[in-house]
């Protein structure tokens, strides 16, 4: 009986000592401070240790160290098939989404997918799921470049893009052969432009297959004011050329790099803009071509 009592006492003492050792015994702000010093892989492990740790890990993810990645490419093959290709240094990871099983249950696998077939954007199905997947990746990785290819831009996409601005760290955005849903939605175009201006990317490439003048002079002026020496490439084959007047000298002089075929500059004041640009003594490129409708000017 005595031995049994002693054993029980010993067990009770061990139990008290263990209780004192609980990470969960720390005040929440202390636990959060500890977890905020970890990376996402560590938080994945911590999350499955207890309900409390799960909640604190969720909050800590906002400040968790992100893994540097070179690029994330999101390409729409057709309304049902979509690729995610991520490069981290020399490694590539690919995910093909064809709608047969929920995207949330799919994982990326090693390897690069070569798909050179060019497609015209079509209405994207289940885009909310797709965007949620990309968001998971962006929470975890800091990207040098985020590239969208042949994506049909709808409200889901714009909502996602907006959430990216809060979540992600991306230096360069590229839109390649993208189009707007509802055939040239003006509201969608304005919203995308406003999001780009608030994000202030140092490099941006905009290639849209829309007929309207999606990129206008006001956008270019606002962009270069928000990001001096921005590097911009605009390609919209079907859009009407923009013809700024001499007041555009000040704006043009602030572009680090500009490649925009549909921007028609009057040679009378072009030299003045070039001189102003050279005075900034920062490397960049301006590419000039002779417009097809070149007249006396």
């Amino acid at each position, binding site marked *: 009986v005595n031995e049994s009592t002693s054993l029980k006492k010993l067990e009770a003492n061990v139990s008290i000592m263990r209780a004192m050792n609980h*990470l969960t015994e720390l005040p929440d702000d*202390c636990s959060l401070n500890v977890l905020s010093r970890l990376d996402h892989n560590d938080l994945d492990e911590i999350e499955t240790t207890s309900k409390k740790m799960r909640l604190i890990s969720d909050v800590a993810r906002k400040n968790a160290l992100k893994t540097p990645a070179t690029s994330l490419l999101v390409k729409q093959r057709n309304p049902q098939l979509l690729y995610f290709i991520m490069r981290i240094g020399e490694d590539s990871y690919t995910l093909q989404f064809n709608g047969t099983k929920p995207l949330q249950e799919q994982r990326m696998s090693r390897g690069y997918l070569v798909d050179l077939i060019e497609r015209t954007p079509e209405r994207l199905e289940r885009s909310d799921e797709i965007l949620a997947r990309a968001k998971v990746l962006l929470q975890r990785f800091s990207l040098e470049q985020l590239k969208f290819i042949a994506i049909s831009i709808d409200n889901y996409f714009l909502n996602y893009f907006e959430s990216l601005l809060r979540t992600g760290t991306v230096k360069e955005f590229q839109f390649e052969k993208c189009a707007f849903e509802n055939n040239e939605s003006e509201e969608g175009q304005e919203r995308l432009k406003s999001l780009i201006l608030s994000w202030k990317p140092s490099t941006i490439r905009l290639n849209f297959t829309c007929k309207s003048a999606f990129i206008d002079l006001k956008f270019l002026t606002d962009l270069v004011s928000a990001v001096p020496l921005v590097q911009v490439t605009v390609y919209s084959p079907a859009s009407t050329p923009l013809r700024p007047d001499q007041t555009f000298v000040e704006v043009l002089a602030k572009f680090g790099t500009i490649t925009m075929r549909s921007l028609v500059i009057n040679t009378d004041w072009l030299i003045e803009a070039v001189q102003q640009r050279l005075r900034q003594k920062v490397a960049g490129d301006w590419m000039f071509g002779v417009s097809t409708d070149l007249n006396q000017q």
Partner: protein
Amino acid sequence: PNVKLVTSDNEEFVVDFRIAKMSVTVSRLMEAMNMSETDDASLLSNSIPLPNVTKAVMARVIEWCEKHKNDEPKEEKENDKRGRTTHVVSDWDKEFLKNDEFGRLCQLMGAANYLEIKGLFNDISQTIANMIHGKKSDEIAEMFNIHCDLTEAEKKEIRKKTAWCED
């Protein structure tokens, strides 16, 4: 000049004014009690009650403060855009904390938090984070003796949500 600090187990510690001022909490209490460096009478006649700190933990806190009393205040560096902070634990601090069991580290961290001694708090927080880094969930649970109240189904759901790449 010295300041008297009284712990939860009624132990009195007499410490240098500069050391007492390293704690934001003690500093505020001294101001509230009109205790000043130039007024010896106010320092002698008053003691600062610290009901959340035990004698053993206070001794460790004072040992750390003694070592760091001449340090320049230093800010943690922001590691990236998201504001994550990193803290380099000095060799002396590593040595100071290395023999503490996790339970004692937690008590010391709780005290540093309550006393608002930022340098000590960051040292301990980073030390615990370093202990966790790179470990699997079962290792973490064992190391810190975490009682898991999640079901297997819940764990599976969490893993599904967070995994981004096939193993």
